[in-house]
């Protein structure tokens, strides 16, 4: 109900990538946006994150045009973990996580007692508390990703948007992140993430949105969406659907 698209078209450099899309994302779910490269899943996410404007149609937040909302208000409701994260110079981990409190602080950015508590809590929760005095530029890739997650969590928003968070990660960090997101979802956060790995999405997420060529194709639970017919239709792939022996969720196995 909270995030929705109404005849929404998005693109850049004059090229339309998401085409007149109608979509309502359910509250309280762990949602994966899936589809082949160039289908517009990241573009749609960027529009919801206010990075790209709507070319036509509207993106709505709580029933009102998202792009007309006051910026500061929305930054307390929607947080974004971008796909690539620059490495800021001379910034400590605790500083970076504290930047997540920006929507709540005054013009000088001074943290209140409560801000300090939340920053510390999020570092604990992401296992980055021990790193707090280190420079962000000294961290390994996996550590840096966790620090950025802590920063985004410190923003304390009911909605969290992630753009391909697992793409550049080792498998152990991928699993760790997906578990973390699952836990956050159980605590009440709505999570919307662009993913590449269909089996990963089916295993951890409870709502899948599948796009192709800028249009919405399928939407629903992994059971409903992950079918041989869908894989054939969207990815032109011959595949069988089996049960994941550990989680009992649907899983696709590609045929030769």
């Amino acid at each position, binding site marked *: 109900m909270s995030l929705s698209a109404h005849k929404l078209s998005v693109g850049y450099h004059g090229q339309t990538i998401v085409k007149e899309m109608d979509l309502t994302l359910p509250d309280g779910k762990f949602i994966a946006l899936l589809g082949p490269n160039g289908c517009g899943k990241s573009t749609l996410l*960027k529009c919801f*994150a206010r*990075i790209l404007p709507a070319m036509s149609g509207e993106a709505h937040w709580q029933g009102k045009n998202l792009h007309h909302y006051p910026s500061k208000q929305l*930054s307390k409701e929607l*947080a974004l973990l971008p796909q690539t*994260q*620059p490495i800021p110079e001379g910034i400590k981990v605790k500083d970076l996580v504290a930047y997540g409190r920006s929507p709540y602080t005054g*013009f000088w*950015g001074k943290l209140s007692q409560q801000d300090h508590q939340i920053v510390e809590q999020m570092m604990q929760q992401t296992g980055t508390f021990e790193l707090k005095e280190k420079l962000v530029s000294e961290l390994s890739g996996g550590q840096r990703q966790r620090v950025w997650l802590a920063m985004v969590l410190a923003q304390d928003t009911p909605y969290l948007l992630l753009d391909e968070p697992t793409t550049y990660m080792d498998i152990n960090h991928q699993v760790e992140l997906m578990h973390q997101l699952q836990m956050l979802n159980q605590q009440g956060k709505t999570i919307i993430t662009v993913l590449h790995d269909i089996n990963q999405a089916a295993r951890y997420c409870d709502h899948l949105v599948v796009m192709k060529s800028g249009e919405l194709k399928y939407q629903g639970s992994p059971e409903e969406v992950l079918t041989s017919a869908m894989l054939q239709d969207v990815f032109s792939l011959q595949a069988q659907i089996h049960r994941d022996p550990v989680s009992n969720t649907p899983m696709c196995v590609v045929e030769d």
Partner: protein
Amino acid sequence: MTAQRFFPIAVITLLLLALANLMFGAVSLSVEEVWKGLYASSENHFTIYEYRLPRIFLAILVGAGLALSGALVQGVIRNPLASPDVLGVGHGAGLAAVCYMTFFSEASTRWLPEVALAGGILAALVLWYLCGARSSAIKLAITGVALAALWASCIDFLMLTKPLEINNALLWLTGSLWGRGWAQLQALLPWFVLIPLALGLSKYLNLLDLGDDSAISLGARPQHLRLLALAIAVALTAACVSICGPIGFLGLVAPHLTRKLVGGRHQPLLPATMLTGACLLLAADLAARTLDPPIELPAGILTAIIGAPYFLWLLLRMK
């Protein structure tokens, strides 16, 4: 070094350098003579009050202004090698000044600062016009460097083809505090209302370090922020250059050095950078006046002697 330790040390260094600037020069004075010199009855009154004191204030303001501009430009362009020099403001101001002296040779040098200021701002506007509002920071920097080279070659052309009129210009172009006094200080001071405005951007400049996408998500407006920060940097640089000529490398070295000492958060970084810049220019001017008295070297040459190797060292260290 933490910010808490940086500030007392920097302030003490600044005061000591100011005192040394009052004491040493073509004539060396004791602390007591300096103190008495502040009063009209002293034989040293002219040296202290009319000559050395305004020059100290000017060095502090120009040093702080150029350093702050550098920190703003580095914050916006997100590259430690960036500085107001890469925007072509200094060379633009220089070209305007040289044109003025060449083509209006009988005109008074009274208007030189205003002409240089206009030239500096004009150079920034040309850069802005060429790059457009939505251009990337790197495009801005590269175009700026190209334009600065163009302005510099125009200056050289004028200097070589009209050598007679150009002696004054040459003196001004090396960047010096020589012969500047209370009048120049008065002209410069109004521009420093921009400082609180710049400090007020600290919180949002921090967010630019996270990339535009994250900055937007945290409630900042990167395009507006960049425009505002660059406008402040251009205005401050042009104002400083119009009074003292281009003081090279200060806008590069001071913020970079300070970032190493107090970290990248702009709340401590911006005020700390101003202190570093003021100390560096005071030290450069002290050296300029005392190395070979009574001859004065231009302070701009000294900052370049220190700054250029520092810049090279930075370049070589970059991967």
